[in-house]
């Protein structure tokens, strides 16, 4: 049964093959391309399910994960090791990622219909799927980094998919460059880690001895003083997460990334790529907590908590339906990272999984709304879609309840576990921040629901909205079911009745070596209260007296606060004014230098060369050299004449003579060729006799 794990390496391969096939052969036949992509990811999905269920049935998978290695490029004493690893974390990721990919691919079949670059879209998402799947099954940090970068590339290609729109191009570039900053730190972390330990394989890096070694070793840095190496490496690696998972201060790319098609937003910027950053931290969790009371977890938790609250506040003031969800994603990622910083391994991982499902659901739902409302994305122009798009509405409700944290939906269990963990371990500030963010989350989701689905349609588009085709609504239904039910795999064991019945399989599978979070009734009650309160306030402001067409958002009454929030605290502008401006000025400076200094030098050299060559021609080449050449020519002609005469008399004579001789000899010798075999045999016999005579008589 465990041998089925050998299928693991195939999981990223099928989408890669689909990518190759589409790019090389099938670009012209859209249907074939899209179905090929769907088929490939479906195969990966089946294989992943097999691996997942086998993993679930394998005891002690955490201590003895399955690994399959390939060594290549043996360079001196260290061979380069690439391989796949299956441990419980990998298994749950494999459960989630291909499932979401398959559903979103199917959704995209309908959503991207009519796009001129339909086939190319599926090629890109297939490559992306390869990247994410490869990252999840990787057994070492280098392989992870490679697939990380592949996803970065695909993200750029997909955000800027509609490259006719300059805003999309800018967004793509912004995403790429911003995550690049994070990746630079990540790479530094990898290099430093490798230099200290000589390996990048998880098995070796996360072993007890290595972690002890790194924790005890210290390095003295200019500003920070003496810091344990483990902390430095962990924080450098965390840099990658800050970029990829859009944490403050590298969060600026994610809202702009909404320029891409909605399936892209759902897949990359909700469910998979951004969770790769969190996955990295989960995977490297022992490294982060290697130093007791270390700085690394503090930094991580702080950034996570801050981001969670920070993004919430911005989300409250956004009008674009997808931007709300984008900031919501940033905020939820902050939750996960905060949890991991606080040491809540299982809670963080659990929220990662549940969030992927309901966030994907929300994005796909928003896509359905956008398509239904004829590509209108401003929520202020929507309204009353409840009656017109029933399936979208109800599934969206499911997603909202999950995100807001209303039991028994999935988000409640995972979010509550994080908050309970924070509270139980005395991190009251984190708990408070998290709770406040939970309230705001419920509020802005409620705002969104009431603005979009309730009331009267506030525009022509909303009035004529209709439900989306089945390829789009079926995935919504599937995801809604998950949003409702997935939470039950993580119900804490001390929860009355339910916990005992279900036994928290998630905890037992993924993190049984970590202590389970006991249920804190106070925290749980408060969570529910805050969630309901948030939804309630949303109802009060937006639901009781639904907005009419042209009416401004009631939040504008907050005045300055509202303006600040709506403009995202001006961070984009800040970056533009500082880093971007600086880079462009520097480039201008270098261009100036190149033009004035270097070009001048080059031109002067050119002119000097021209003068020299002219002088050489006039005074050296014409009189002297030409004279010599002509003299040589005349001498040569005289010699040739002499030689010619010699050739005629002597050489020709010899040649003719040889010819005549050959003729004569030929005439003589031809007489041997009588054509009669008997004569030939006679000659042969003579030879034999002679040879034998020599052999017997002489020797």
């Amino acid at each position, binding site marked *: 049964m465990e041998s089925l794990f050998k299928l693991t390496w195939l999981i990223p391969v099928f989408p890669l093959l689909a990518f190759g096939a589409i790019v090389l052969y099938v670009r012209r036949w859209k249907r074939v391309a899209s179905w090929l992509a769907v088929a490939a990811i479906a195969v990966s999905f089946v294989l992943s399910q097999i691996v997942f269920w086998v993993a679930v049935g394998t005891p002690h998978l955490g201590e003895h994960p399955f690994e399959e290695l390939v060594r290549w490029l043996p360079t001196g004493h260290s061979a380069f090791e690439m391989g796949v690893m299956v441990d419980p974390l990998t298994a749950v990721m494999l459960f989630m990622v291909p499932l979401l990919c398959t559903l979103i691919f199917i959704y995209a079949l309908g959503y991207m219909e009519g796009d001129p670059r339909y086939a190319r879209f599926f090629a890109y998402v297939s490559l992306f799927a390869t990247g994410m799947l490869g990252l999840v099954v990787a057994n070492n940090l280098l392989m992870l980094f490679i697939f990380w970068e592949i996803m970065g590339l695909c993200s750029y290609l997909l955000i800027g998919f509609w490259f006719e729109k300059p805003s999309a191009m800018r967004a793509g570039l912004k995403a790429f460059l911003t995550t690049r900053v994070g990746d630079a730190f990540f790479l530094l972390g990898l290099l430093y880690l490798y230099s200290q330990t000589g390996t990048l394989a998880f098995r070796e890096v996360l072993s007890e001895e290595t972690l002890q070694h790194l924790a005890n070793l210290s390095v003295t840095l200019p500003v920070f003083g003496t810091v344990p190496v483990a902390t430095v490496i962990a924080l450098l690696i965390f840099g990658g997460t800050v970029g990829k998972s859009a944490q403050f201060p590298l969060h600026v790319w994610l809202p702009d990334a909404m320029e891409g098609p909605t399936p892209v937003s759902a897949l990359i910027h909700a469910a998979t790529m951004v969770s790769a950053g969190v996955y990295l931290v989960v995977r490297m969790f022992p490294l982060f907590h290697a130093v007791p009371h270390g700085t690394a977890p503090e930094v991580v938790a702080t950034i996570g908590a801050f981001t969670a609250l920070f993004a919430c506040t911005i989300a409250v003031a956004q009008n674009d339906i997808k931007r709300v969800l984008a900031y919501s994603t940033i905020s939820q990622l902050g939750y996960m990272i905060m949890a991991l910083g606080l040491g809540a391994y299982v809670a963080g991982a659990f929220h990662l999984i549940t969030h992927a499902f309901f966030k994907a659901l929300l994005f796909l739902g928003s896509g359905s709304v956008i398509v239904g409302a004829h590509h209108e994305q401003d929520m202020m122009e929507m309204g009353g879609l409840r009656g017109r798009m029933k399936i979208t509405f109800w599934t969206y409700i499911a997603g909202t309840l999950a995100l807001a944290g209303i039991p028994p939906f999935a988000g409640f269990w995972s979010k509550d576990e994080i908050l309970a963990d924070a509270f139980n371990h005395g991190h009251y500030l984190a708990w408070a921040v998290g709770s406040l963010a939970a309230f705001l989350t419920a509020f802005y989701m409620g705002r969104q629901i009431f603005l979009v689905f309730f009331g009267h349609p506030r525009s022509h588009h909303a009035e004529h909205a209709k439900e989306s085709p089945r390829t789009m609504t079926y995935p919504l239904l599937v995801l809604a079911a998950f949003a409702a039910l997935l939470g039950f795999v993580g119900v804490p064991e001390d929860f009355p009745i339910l916990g005992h019945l279900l036994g928290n399989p998630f905890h037992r599978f993924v993190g049984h070596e970590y202590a389970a979070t006991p249920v804190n009734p106070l925290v749980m009650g408060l969570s529910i209260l805050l969630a309901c309160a948030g939804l309630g306030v949303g109802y009060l402001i937006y639901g009781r007296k639904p907005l009419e067409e042209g009416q401004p958002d009631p939040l504008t009454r907050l005045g300055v606060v509202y303006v600040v929030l709506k403009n995202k605290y001006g961070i984009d502008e800040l970056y533009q004014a500082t880093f971007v401006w600086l880079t462009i000025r520097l480039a201008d400076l270098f261009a100036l230098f190149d033009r004035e200094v270097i070009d001048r030098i080059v031109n002067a050299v050119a002119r000097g060369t021209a003068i020299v060559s002219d002088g050489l021609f006039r005074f050296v080449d014409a009189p002297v050299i030409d004279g010599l050449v002509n003299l040589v020519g005349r001498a040569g002609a005289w010699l040739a004449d002499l030689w010619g005469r010699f050739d005629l008399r002597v050489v020709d004579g010899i040649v003719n003579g040889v010819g005549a001789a050959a003729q004569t000899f030929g005439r003589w010798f031809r007489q041997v*060729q009588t*054509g009669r075999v*008997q004569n030939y045999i006679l000659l042969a016999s003579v030879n034999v006799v002679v040879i034998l005579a020599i052999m017997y008589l002489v020797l």
Partner: protein
Amino acid sequence: MIPLTWYLVLSAVLFCIGLYGVLARRNAIAILMGAELMLNSANINLAAFERYLAAGSLAGQVFVIFNVAVAAAEAAVGLALILAIYRSRDTVSVEEVDLLKG
């Protein structure tokens, strides 16, 4: 007891007579007969060597049998060729068949 050398000398004599037949006769069939005689003289040699130098090994006698088979095949094909030439050129004198001349 007959010395081995007697057999060998007999074989040599027959061989040379056969060789003379091959070299000096005009008629193609006569040449063929000379060749047959040469093959048979070789057989005598083989049988004699086997009898005197390696009595139990059988190699010589087996070789003789194969040699006879080959001689028979050669005679058959040779005569067929002579017949074919006779039909097309109306001669069996090898002196008149000099197509290889040159």
